[in-house]
């Protein structure tokens, strides 16, 4: 891991050559029990958490809830043995591990006790792609439980379907922001999103769709990200360094030192660095909510402002069952499938690579922003499948 960290500092993608990732043939995973299915991968995305793992930046927090060796890949569209096209909700929840659901119809990510993550029919692992029993999307075949499968119409483009998982993550963060104490009771809250990679854009899509009155401000580093956020319907899109001023302009508040006197009702950090979290806390209004969507790892932060402003700092991990503005509930994945079709999410898939070209793929994913890309994925389809999709 140390070597991977050093290599990643030398050049993007370098860790893919020397880090914990091997390109090798492994045995096809066995079906763990009843309700499990074989899934043949069609497309599988490269996520920021995959890059963290490859570059050795992942937190040791996960050491006890993953099992090695595992095949990465949790953003997956594939097909079952009967040819049904499916997208995977990768969380290995209660049902997959043979435990009772925390409540009727609970999603894999629901529940307030994570004890099941290290027990049951399969080895520890928070998700497909981090568990040695299941395999993952970066292999031609893996296993998935009934509770993880979302069946798609056969004419759903793979390029759209592979974006459903990140969209679900973004929608979950969006609803956490919209349901925060300051934003929930407000018809037109100011909600800011810092970062407009795939996840930031997914959150923007979620906010536009499920909190339509929100005055949405997006801080995006690259021009193509700014254009994508605009296209989704964000109210105001600015370079990331100008986000605080843009929020202030909407709120008409003062600036005290480098923090806004007021600020956004909720802010989503889609970057996950110490600097980005600190910036989000500075622009969240007192008693507002900052949602951490980007995985932060180990960071050093001055939390005096959080204490003084009584800011809620809320993590946003994956998806589950959501509460919508009208009081109804819905599975995040159902919302994501619908949103992906509405926005034409396939336009976010910038490039695909064969597994054999994994170093190039990971390099591209690690430098996606500056290269004008959004999502990079592995393509495991044969030529005929690609053409017919």
């Amino acid at each position, binding site marked *: 891991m140390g070597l991977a960290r050093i290599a990643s500092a030398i050049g993007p993608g370098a860790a893919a050559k020397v880090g914990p990732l091997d390109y090798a043939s492994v045995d096809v995973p066995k079906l763990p029990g009843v309700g499990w299915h074989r899934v043949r991968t069609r497309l599988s995305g490269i996520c920021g958490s995959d890059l963290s793992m490859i570059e050795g930046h992942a937190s040791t927090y996960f050491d006890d809830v993953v099992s090695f060796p595992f095949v990465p890949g949790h953003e997956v569209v594939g097909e079952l043995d009967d040819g049904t096209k499916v997208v995977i909700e990768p969380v290995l929840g209660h049902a997959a591990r043979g435990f009772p659901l925390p409540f009727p119809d609970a999603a894999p990510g629901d529940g307030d006790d994570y004890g099941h993550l290290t027990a049951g029919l399969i080895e520890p692992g928070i998700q497909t792609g981090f568990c040695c029993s299941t395999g993952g999307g970066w292999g031609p075949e893996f296993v998935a439980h009934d509770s993880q499968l979302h069946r798609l119409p056969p004419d759903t483009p793979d390029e759209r379907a592979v974006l459903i998982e990140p969209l679900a993550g973004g929608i979950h963060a969006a609803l956490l922001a919209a349901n925060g104490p300051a934003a929930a009771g407000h018809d037109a809250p100011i909600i800011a999103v810092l970062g407009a990679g795939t996840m930031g854009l997914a959150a923007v899509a979620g906010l536009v769709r499920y909190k339509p009155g929100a005055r949405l401000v997006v801080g995006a580093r690259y021009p193509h990200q700014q254009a994508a956020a605009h296209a989704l319907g964000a109210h*105001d899109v*600015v370079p990331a360094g*100008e986000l605080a*001023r*843009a929020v*202030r*302009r909407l709120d*008409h*508040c*003062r*600036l005290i030192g480098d923090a806004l*006197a007021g600020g956004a009702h909720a802010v989503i950090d889609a970057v996950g660095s110490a600097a980005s979290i600190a910036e989000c806390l500075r622009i969240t209004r007192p008693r507002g909510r900052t949602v951490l969507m980007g995985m932060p790892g180990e960071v050093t932060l001055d939390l005096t402002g959080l204490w003084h402003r009584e800011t809620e700092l809320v993590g946003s991990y994956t998806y589950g069952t959501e509460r919508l503005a009208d009081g109804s509930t819905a599975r995040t994945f159902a919302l994501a499938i619908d949103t992906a079709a509405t926005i034409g999410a396939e336009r976010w898939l910038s490039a695909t690579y064969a597994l054999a070209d994994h170093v190039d793929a990971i390099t591209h994913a690690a430098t996606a922003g500056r290269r004008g890309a959004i999502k990079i994925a592995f393509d495991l389809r044969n030529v005929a499948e690609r053409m017919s999709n």
Partner: protein
Amino acid sequence: MPRPGFVLDVDRSTPPTLFWRGEGFSLEKLPPDRSRVIYAPEPLPAIDDIDGTIRHALDHPIDSDPLREQMFAGMKLTVAFDDVSLPLPKMRRPDIRQRVIEAVLDVAAEAGVDDVHLIAALALHRRMTEGELRHAVGNRVYDAFAPSGALYQHDAEDPDQLAFLGQTAQGEDVEINKRAAESDLLVYVNINMVAMDGGWKSTAVGLASYRSLRPHHNPTTMEASHSFMDQHRSELHHSTWRMGQVLVDAGVKVFQIESTINTDTFPAPFDFLLKREWEWSAKDRAMYLGTSKSLSKLPVSAARKIFHSIEAPHQMTSIQCGEVEAVHRQTTEHVYRQQLVEVQGQTDILTMGIPFICPYNVHSIMNPILVMCTGLGYFFNLYRNKPLVREGGVVIMTHPTLPDFNPVHHPSYIDFYEQVLADTTDPHEMSTTWEERYANDDWYRHLYRTSNAYHGVHPFYMWYWGAHGMKHCAKVIIVGGNAKAVRRLGFVPASTMSDAFEMASDVVGRSPTITHLKTPPLMIADVV
């Protein structure tokens, strides 16, 4: 005897011409046989006995009783004076304002006047620092009045300090500083750097509120001012003159003191900047090379510091006081005597080097909005009769145009650049869509009143200032400017002067006439 202004026709033997580029310069070779360079008149000699002349002027005003005859014990006297925006660069001590104010206060003291307030006439400019106030009025005046609160700065956002005096026949609201309006006598101490300054603009603008500035600080008025340097053809001046009449009708008694200065703008070692290039001595050439090389190696902040520490040797050439309009007529003639250069006909391309300073970045940063304002608002308007460039012609400026802003002085400029210019560069559209939002922003208001920030609406005014120039020209090119910032302004970036001429050829053809306005020092082109 100083030489008058001069228009040089460029030929093959003409040495390269010096162009300002912010905190630096370049030498540019202009195409021969179709280019000309306008050089300012040499500085007029300063008055020998400045203090004696001031006292004489106070005793012999125009169309008014002598100042001492208007003073009486128990009266309420207010002395308002021009702020840090002029002269440029700041003048060597003692500043003319100090000399004049001391003379006025001597007269007041002799008459037993003890209710005296001194007010810096800021309008919506930034508040001056203590150091800047001391520089303007002198330590003696500052120490005598500031501690007791009798020397202060106009606050256009304090409703308790404003007096509404009525409307002009055109419905323009007139609201100025209450203390000034309600005094038995308002003495205005002015410095006329350019013909635009002075007259009713001093009181009706310098002591006004946003409500009272809106009627003339707007795109329509600015586009109808041809030019600011010719008050008879300036709608801005027509409006302020109408407001002056409201002041008179309301009983505001003004004793106007206007002074003019010569164009002795730069001290050694920068005095080569005042010379014509073919007259540069070996020492001047060495100074040019040494200065420009050293400046190019310095961080911009260090170069700025050097330039803003310059104290100009310019000095008083005239002083007149009394009735506002009569005084201003004489003042304007003095300004023209120093600055007017006769120029035959218009040009296809007007080039201008934008220097490090304009009225709104003293001790600060020439941000992109101020670059636009200096080029199209000020330099473009340095004309009488007709603009130097023909309608549909091209303006080429040279300036680095870095997207740098002073967050203390120009907080709303940053947002204007990021938000408003990203939306529109059309002065009318931004006036409708954005202006009030900025003018009424509580944070900007707070910073204007308590810090050293220009008012929230000020960047709009800077943009409007260039409205006539923008409308008149088909294309504006900035040579050596930050490409992104130049595009944000709605202009075209060019790397070199040759590239700029090539780009301009789309509009003016391949053999256009070119005129370079070599300023500073300041001048006014009388285009006939």
